[in-house]
Each structure stands twice: as C-alpha cells, then as structure tokens.
C-alpha cells in the first residue's frame, strides 16, 4: 500500500516538474514531509544533499526517499516511477516537436507555471531554512554556499561536501 502511494505520488510529481529538477522539491516536501509524514524536514534536506553530491540528475534523491520509505524495493520503484512520465512525455514530444513547440496551450500554461514554481521553491527554501539554520554558524554556511554557487563556477557538489567537513569540525 505504501509502495503504491510512493509510486503514484512520484509519477504525478515528476509529470509536473516543469522548469528543472529542483521544481520537484515543493511537491515532494508537501507530500512526503507535511502530509504523509514519511520523512522529517531534516531527512528531506539530507535526501536533497545526497541527490546533489552523487553524479547524474537530482532525481536520484527520489531513490533515497524510496529507500527511507520502504527499503531497496522502494528505491528501485521510486526511480522507475520518477522516469516513467518523462519517457512517455518526451517520446511523444520528440515525435510532434514542432506542433508542441508552437502550441499556444503549452506556451501559455508554461508562462504561468515557470514563475509560479519559483514562488513555491522560495517558500520551500524558507521552510528548510527554519530547520537547518539554527545558529550563526549554519547561517554563515548557507550564505557562503549561496554566494559560492551564484558567483563562482564551483560545482555545488563540492560546496556541499565542504560544508559537511566544516560541520564535522565545527558543529
């Protein structure tokens, strides 16, 4: 039952991830943390971190969520469910690329969705900040991480690994 819920949620969420991998986060947090209490906010943060430091897309964080929810089977099913909508939609779009690109329905709905997901992601950033930023040190790490990723070409994975080392030494 819980596996079915996991798969269903991930299929819906991945079908609506428009504008980049991070757009999953507001939906994942709402469903897995707030509504179904399958993860804590801290575990959700950790899943994002694991998804980020491993090579390949952020989508692999869903394997971590799946594993937490129901072990190895959960991890595998989570990845299958995450990619299923992508395969279906991309193969259809690849076939009808020009019609899709020119479609007013697609263009105008995306024009609403793309800015909206930024608002959603900002709200998630605040919620995650409430959990993770508890003292001046963690605030400092967050500011350094933001600045480094925005203003230098450093890979975010290294920023996160660096913050882990800093955490081990200082926190």
């Amino acid at each position: 039952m819980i596996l079915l819920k996991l798969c269903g949620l991930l299929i819906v969420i991945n079908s609506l991830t428009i504008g980049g991998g991070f757009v999953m986060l507001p939906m994942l947090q709402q469903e897995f943390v707030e509504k179904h209490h399958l993860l804590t906010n801290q575990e959700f943060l950790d899943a994002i971190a694991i998804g980020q430091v491993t090579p390949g897309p952020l989508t692999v964080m869903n394997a971590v969520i799946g594993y937490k929810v129901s072990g190895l089977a959960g991890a595998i099913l989570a990845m299958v469910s995450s990619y299923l909508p992508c395969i279906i939609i991309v193969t259809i779009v690849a076939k009808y690329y020009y019609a899709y690109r020119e479609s007013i329905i697609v263009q105008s709905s995306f024009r609403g969705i793309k800015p909206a997901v930024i608002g959603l992601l900002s709200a998630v950033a605040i919620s995650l900040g409430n959990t993770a930023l508890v003292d001046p040190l963690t605030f400092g790490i967050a500011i350094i991480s933001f600045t480094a990723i925005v203003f230098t070409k450093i890979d975010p994975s290294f920023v996160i690994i660096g913050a882990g080392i800093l955490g081990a030494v200082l926190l």
Partner: protein
Amino acid sequence: MEDKITVRDIFWKFLKIGSFSFGGVYAMLAFFERELVEKEKWLTHEEFVESVAVGQMTPGAPIVNTGICIGYRLKRLKGALATIAGQSFTGTLLAVLLAVFYVKSRGNALLTSIMKGVGAAVVGLVLSIVYKMSRNTIKDLGAALFALAAFFALSLFRLNPIGLILLSGITGLVVYGRRR
C-alpha cells in the same frame, strides 16, 4: 550510419556521461555535445540543439529528458530506456549506498554534525537556484505576480503545490492563451 549504433553502445555512452556529470547543466550539455556530436557523430548539431530544446520544455530533469530524446531518435523506445539506465546507474547506486549508510548510522554524533553543515549548504543551494531561475524567468510584472501568488499560497495558506502548479498552468492559459 544510425543502423550501426546498438542499444548497448547507447547504454555505455550514457553510463560514461552519467558517471562523470559534474559541473551543472551547461557543463553537462557541453559534455553531451562533445561525446555524441563531435566524437561519435550519432547526431548533427541541429538535432542535438532540438533535443536540448525538447529536454527543456518537458517535465522532469532537462538533462535526463535531453538524453531520452536522443536515445529515442537513435533507437526508439529501447534507445530511450538505455539512456536513462546509463545516465542514472552510477548516481542511483551511490545514492542507495549512501542512504543505507545514512539510515544505519542514524544518531551517530559525527554524522549529525556533518549533516548539520550539509543541510545549511543545501538551503544556500536552493536559494541560489531560486535566484538563477528568477533571473531567467521573472522579466515582467505578470511573471512576478505569478511567483508572489504561488509563494503566499504555499507559505501562508499551505495550499498543495501540485494543485498550485496545475492552477498556475490553467491561469497562464486563461491570461496568455488568447493574446495573438
């Protein structure tokens, strides 16, 4: 020429791409182009650019979707599946190993300290994504209103993000769909 490419070739190529994919979207796309267009000549530059466009206008991670599109062009559904399997294999394996380790060592003081630092950095990372997306997307008052409305709907009224994304799509359709 495309006949000579096997599904196995596609899998190995994308395994390589997926295993060494650090450096963000643009570095990844440059790597794709070098491997697939320049080295293997599996597709032309134009086909590559079109695949990237498909990847960006479909739901899911753009890089994965670009790969699916390329795999589909080369070998239909089997090709698409081979790109996903290749691209995600290393990351998924490592993520599961880390998850096993993470669940097993819960409560460990050192791990807790590490994850405190990591969690703070993730907040910075998510904010940096918000910043980068805003610079590309929020270019007029309409877009700003969509972003603000979604922000308050989630942070103040705790409305469901899935519903909010659907609603913003429908609103976009109503607001922008008729002009022209």
